[in-house]
Protein backbone atom coordinates (compact mmCIF):
# COMPACT_ATOMS: atom_id res chain seq x y z
CA UNK A 1 0.00 0.00 0.00
CA UNK A 2 2.82 2.40 1.02
CA UNK A 3 4.77 1.51 -2.13
CA UNK A 4 1.67 2.17 -4.25
CA UNK A 5 1.17 5.57 -2.60
CA UNK A 6 4.86 6.47 -3.11
CA UNK A 7 4.56 5.48 -6.78
CA UNK A 8 1.46 7.63 -7.24
CA UNK A 9 3.22 10.58 -5.59
CA UNK A 10 6.20 10.12 -7.93
CA UNK A 11 3.98 9.94 -11.02
CA UNK A 12 2.12 13.09 -9.96
CA UNK A 13 5.39 14.94 -9.34
CA UNK A 14 6.74 13.77 -12.71
CA UNK A 15 3.60 14.98 -14.48
CA UNK A 16 4.00 18.31 -12.70
CA UNK A 17 7.54 18.56 -14.08
CA UNK A 18 6.19 17.78 -17.58
CA UNK A 19 3.63 20.59 -17.15
CA UNK A 20 6.30 23.05 -16.00
CA UNK A 21 8.56 22.10 -18.93
CA UNK A 22 5.78 22.57 -21.50
CA UNK A 23 4.58 25.87 -20.03
CA UNK A 24 8.16 27.18 -19.86
CA UNK A 25 8.58 26.57 -23.59
CA UNK A 26 5.08 27.80 -24.43
CA UNK A 27 5.61 31.13 -22.66
CA UNK A 28 9.10 31.48 -24.09
CA UNK A 29 7.75 31.27 -27.63
CA UNK A 30 4.61 33.32 -27.02
CA UNK A 31 4.02 35.94 -29.71
CA UNK A 32 2.71 39.38 -28.75
CA UNK A 33 -0.67 40.68 -29.80
CA UNK A 34 -0.87 44.00 -31.66
CA UNK A 35 0.38 46.94 -29.64
CA UNK A 36 2.17 44.81 -27.05
CA UNK A 37 5.97 44.68 -26.93
CA UNK A 38 7.81 41.40 -26.77
CA UNK A 39 11.40 40.37 -27.29
CA UNK A 40 12.61 38.28 -30.20
CA UNK A 41 15.74 37.33 -32.07
CA UNK A 42 16.50 39.34 -35.22
CA UNK A 43 19.29 38.57 -37.66
CA UNK A 44 21.96 41.08 -38.56
CA UNK A 45 22.10 41.45 -42.35
CA UNK A 46 25.05 43.84 -42.30
CA UNK A 47 27.37 41.54 -40.33
CA UNK A 48 28.57 44.53 -38.30
CA UNK A 49 27.24 45.18 -34.82
CA UNK A 50 25.06 48.30 -34.73
CA UNK A 51 21.83 49.69 -33.29
CA UNK A 52 20.02 50.41 -36.57
CA UNK A 53 16.82 48.31 -36.81
CA UNK A 54 17.01 48.47 -40.64
CA UNK A 55 20.08 46.21 -40.43
CA UNK A 56 18.20 43.52 -38.53
CA UNK A 57 15.45 41.24 -39.86
CA UNK A 58 13.19 38.58 -38.47
CA UNK A 59 13.43 35.18 -40.13
CA UNK A 60 11.43 32.09 -39.19
CA UNK A 61 14.00 29.85 -40.85
CA UNK A 62 17.10 31.94 -40.16
CA UNK A 63 20.22 30.42 -38.73
CA UNK A 64 23.65 31.47 -37.49
CA UNK A 65 26.62 29.56 -38.86
CA UNK A 66 29.55 29.50 -36.45
CA UNK A 67 32.00 30.48 -39.18
CA UNK A 68 32.99 32.99 -40.44
CA UNK A 69 32.69 34.98 -37.24
CA UNK A 70 30.67 38.19 -37.62
CA UNK A 71 27.74 39.90 -35.88
CA UNK A 72 24.85 37.52 -36.54
CA UNK A 73 21.83 38.05 -34.32
CA UNK A 74 20.54 40.10 -31.43
CA UNK A 75 17.47 40.36 -29.26
CA UNK A 76 15.16 43.33 -29.92
CA UNK A 77 11.89 44.54 -28.53
CA UNK A 78 9.15 44.46 -31.15
CA UNK A 79 5.44 44.82 -31.57
CA UNK A 80 3.28 43.39 -34.34
CA UNK A 81 2.89 44.16 -37.17
CA UNK A 82 6.50 44.40 -38.37
CA UNK A 83 7.45 46.48 -41.42
CA UNK A 84 9.62 44.43 -43.82
CA UNK A 85 10.59 42.20 -40.88
CA UNK A 86 12.62 44.90 -39.11
CA UNK A 87 12.32 45.35 -35.34
CA UNK A 88 10.35 48.39 -34.24
CA UNK A 89 11.46 48.58 -30.62
CA UNK A 90 14.74 49.06 -28.80
CA UNK A 91 17.70 46.69 -28.86
CA UNK A 92 17.90 44.45 -25.79
CA UNK A 93 21.20 42.63 -26.39
CA UNK A 94 24.33 44.42 -25.30
CA UNK A 95 26.32 42.54 -27.96
CA UNK A 96 25.40 40.50 -31.05
CA UNK A 97 25.76 36.74 -31.19
CA UNK A 98 28.83 35.83 -33.21
CA UNK A 99 28.37 33.93 -36.48
CA UNK A 100 27.16 34.46 -40.00
CA UNK A 101 23.50 34.92 -40.86
CA UNK A 102 22.20 32.18 -43.11
CA UNK A 103 18.74 33.03 -44.34
CA UNK A 104 18.33 30.01 -46.64
Amino acid sequence: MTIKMTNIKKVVLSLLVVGIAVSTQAFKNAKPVNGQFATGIFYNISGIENNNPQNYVFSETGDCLDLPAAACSATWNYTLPLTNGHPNGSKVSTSDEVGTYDGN
Partner: protein
Amino acid sequence: MPVDPINFQSINITIMRTTVIDMKSLLFNPKVAERLTFGISLACLFLFIISAYAKIEGHDKFILGLSKVQFIGSYALWVSWAVPVSEIAISILLIHPLTQRYGLLGFTGLMMVFTLYILGMLLWAEKLPCHCNLIIEKLSFSQHLIFNVAFIALALLALRLMKIKKIIIFKLL
Protein backbone atom coordinates in the same frame (compact mmCIF):
# COMPACT_ATOMS: atom_id res chain seq x y z
CA MET B 1 50.76 18.16 27.95
CA PRO B 2 52.37 17.61 24.53
CA VAL B 3 50.40 15.46 22.09
CA ASP B 4 52.11 12.29 20.94
CA PRO B 5 52.63 12.80 17.14
CA ILE B 6 51.93 9.13 16.35
CA ASN B 7 48.65 9.16 18.26
CA PHE B 8 47.71 12.50 16.73
CA GLN B 9 48.18 10.99 13.27
CA SER B 10 46.09 7.94 14.14
CA ILE B 11 43.28 10.22 15.36
CA ASN B 12 43.39 12.05 12.03
CA ILE B 13 43.20 8.78 10.08
CA THR B 14 40.26 7.66 12.23
CA ILE B 15 38.40 10.93 11.49
CA MET B 16 39.09 10.56 7.76
CA ARG B 17 37.93 6.94 7.77
CA THR B 18 34.76 7.90 9.63
CA THR B 19 34.03 10.63 7.07
CA VAL B 20 34.52 8.23 4.14
CA ILE B 21 32.34 5.60 5.82
CA ASP B 22 29.68 8.25 6.54
CA MET B 23 29.64 9.37 2.89
CA LYS B 24 29.38 5.75 1.76
CA SER B 25 26.63 4.96 4.22
CA LEU B 26 24.80 8.09 3.06
CA LEU B 27 24.88 6.91 -0.56
CA PHE B 28 24.06 3.35 0.44
CA ASN B 29 21.10 4.57 2.47
CA PRO B 30 18.12 3.30 0.43
CA LYS B 31 16.07 6.43 1.10
CA VAL B 32 18.83 8.83 0.01
CA ALA B 33 19.59 6.64 -3.03
CA GLU B 34 15.92 6.59 -3.99
CA ARG B 35 15.52 10.36 -3.65
CA LEU B 36 18.69 11.03 -5.60
CA THR B 37 17.61 8.64 -8.36
CA PHE B 38 14.19 10.26 -8.54
CA GLY B 39 15.70 13.77 -8.62
CA ILE B 40 18.04 12.83 -11.48
CA SER B 41 15.19 11.16 -13.30
CA LEU B 42 13.10 14.36 -13.00
CA ALA B 43 15.98 16.45 -14.37
CA CYS B 44 16.31 14.07 -17.36
CA LEU B 45 12.54 14.20 -17.88
CA PHE B 46 12.52 18.02 -17.86
CA LEU B 47 15.39 18.17 -20.35
CA PHE B 48 13.80 15.75 -22.82
CA ILE B 49 10.32 17.31 -22.61
CA ILE B 50 11.53 20.85 -23.35
CA SER B 51 13.80 19.46 -26.06
CA ALA B 52 10.99 17.49 -27.75
CA TYR B 53 8.52 20.38 -27.42
CA ALA B 54 10.92 22.86 -29.01
CA LYS B 55 11.77 20.44 -31.85
CA ILE B 56 8.12 19.83 -32.68
CA GLU B 57 7.05 23.46 -32.29
CA GLY B 58 9.95 24.74 -34.39
CA HIS B 59 9.94 21.71 -36.68
CA ASP B 60 10.55 23.73 -39.87
CA LYS B 61 13.64 25.33 -38.39
CA PHE B 62 14.85 22.04 -36.96
CA ILE B 63 14.51 20.18 -40.27
CA LEU B 64 16.22 23.06 -42.06
CA GLY B 65 19.16 22.89 -39.66
CA LEU B 66 19.42 19.11 -40.07
CA SER B 67 19.27 19.32 -43.87
CA LYS B 68 22.44 21.43 -43.80
CA VAL B 69 24.35 18.75 -41.90
CA GLN B 70 26.60 16.46 -43.91
CA PHE B 71 25.66 12.73 -43.71
CA ILE B 72 22.24 13.53 -42.12
CA GLY B 73 21.01 15.90 -44.83
CA SER B 74 19.28 13.27 -46.96
CA TYR B 75 17.55 11.73 -43.92
CA ALA B 76 16.60 15.10 -42.40
CA LEU B 77 12.83 14.51 -42.49
CA TRP B 78 13.10 11.07 -40.91
CA VAL B 79 15.57 12.22 -38.23
CA SER B 80 13.54 15.37 -37.47
CA TRP B 81 10.60 13.18 -36.35
CA ALA B 82 12.59 10.25 -34.91
CA VAL B 83 14.46 12.45 -32.41
CA PRO B 84 11.47 14.15 -30.69
CA VAL B 85 9.38 10.95 -30.80
CA SER B 86 12.22 9.03 -29.09
CA GLU B 87 12.56 11.80 -26.50
CA ILE B 88 8.82 11.65 -25.73
CA ALA B 89 8.87 7.82 -25.53
CA ILE B 90 11.81 7.93 -23.09
CA SER B 91 10.08 10.67 -21.06
CA ILE B 92 6.99 8.45 -20.71
CA LEU B 93 9.22 5.65 -19.41
CA LEU B 94 10.83 8.07 -16.94
CA ILE B 95 7.46 9.09 -15.47
CA HIS B 96 6.50 5.77 -13.89
CA PRO B 97 8.82 4.30 -11.18
CA LEU B 98 8.34 0.80 -12.62
CA THR B 99 9.72 1.80 -16.03
CA GLN B 100 12.15 4.43 -14.73
CA ARG B 101 15.17 2.14 -15.17
CA TYR B 102 14.40 1.59 -18.86
CA GLY B 103 13.83 5.31 -19.21
CA LEU B 104 17.23 6.09 -17.72
CA LEU B 105 18.86 3.49 -19.99
CA GLY B 106 17.14 5.02 -23.02
CA PHE B 107 18.11 8.52 -21.88
CA THR B 108 21.76 7.49 -21.52
CA GLY B 109 21.75 5.81 -24.94
CA LEU B 110 20.14 8.75 -26.76
CA MET B 111 22.37 11.27 -25.01
CA MET B 112 25.39 9.22 -26.08
CA VAL B 113 24.17 9.38 -29.70
CA PHE B 114 23.75 13.18 -29.39
CA THR B 115 27.21 13.45 -27.84
CA LEU B 116 28.80 11.41 -30.63
CA TYR B 117 27.01 13.64 -33.16
CA ILE B 118 28.41 16.79 -31.52
CA LEU B 119 31.86 15.21 -31.33
CA GLY B 120 31.65 14.29 -35.02
CA MET B 121 30.55 17.82 -35.91
CA LEU B 122 33.46 19.28 -33.96
CA LEU B 123 35.94 16.97 -35.64
CA TRP B 124 34.76 16.78 -39.24
CA ALA B 125 32.17 19.43 -40.07
CA GLU B 126 33.39 22.34 -42.20
CA LYS B 127 30.76 24.65 -40.76
CA LEU B 128 28.96 24.23 -37.49
CA PRO B 129 25.23 24.83 -37.77
CA CYS B 130 23.76 25.98 -34.46
CA HIS B 131 20.19 24.71 -34.68
CA CYS B 132 20.12 23.73 -31.01
CA ASN B 133 17.35 25.15 -28.91
CA LEU B 134 16.23 25.40 -25.29
CA ILE B 135 18.43 26.38 -22.38
CA ILE B 136 21.51 25.19 -24.24
CA GLU B 137 21.08 27.45 -27.27
CA LYS B 138 23.56 29.89 -25.76
CA LEU B 139 26.23 27.21 -25.35
CA SER B 140 29.04 26.61 -27.80
CA PHE B 141 29.45 23.11 -29.24
CA SER B 142 32.27 22.35 -26.74
CA GLN B 143 30.17 23.52 -23.80
CA HIS B 144 27.26 21.52 -25.22
CA LEU B 145 29.52 18.46 -25.20
CA ILE B 146 30.39 18.99 -21.51
CA PHE B 147 26.69 19.52 -20.71
CA ASN B 148 25.80 16.20 -22.39
CA VAL B 149 28.60 14.29 -20.68
CA ALA B 150 27.47 15.67 -17.29
CA PHE B 151 23.90 14.46 -17.90
CA ILE B 152 25.15 11.04 -19.06
CA ALA B 153 27.20 10.79 -15.84
CA LEU B 154 24.14 11.73 -13.76
CA ALA B 155 21.98 9.11 -15.50
CA LEU B 156 24.66 6.46 -14.98
CA LEU B 157 24.87 7.44 -11.29
CA ALA B 158 21.09 7.04 -11.00
CA LEU B 159 21.27 3.59 -12.61
CA ARG B 160 24.09 2.61 -10.23
CA LEU B 161 22.12 3.84 -7.20
CA MET B 162 19.09 1.83 -8.36
CA LYS B 163 21.28 -1.28 -8.45
CA ILE B 164 22.71 -0.55 -4.96
CA LYS B 165 19.21 -0.01 -3.59
CA LYS B 166 18.08 -3.36 -5.01
CA ILE B 167 21.06 -5.17 -3.40
CA ILE B 168 20.38 -3.56 0.00
CA ILE B 169 16.69 -4.49 -0.09
CA PHE B 170 17.63 -8.04 -1.15
CA LYS B 171 20.13 -8.30 1.75
CA LEU B 172 17.58 -6.93 4.24
CA LEU B 173 15.09 -9.57 3.14
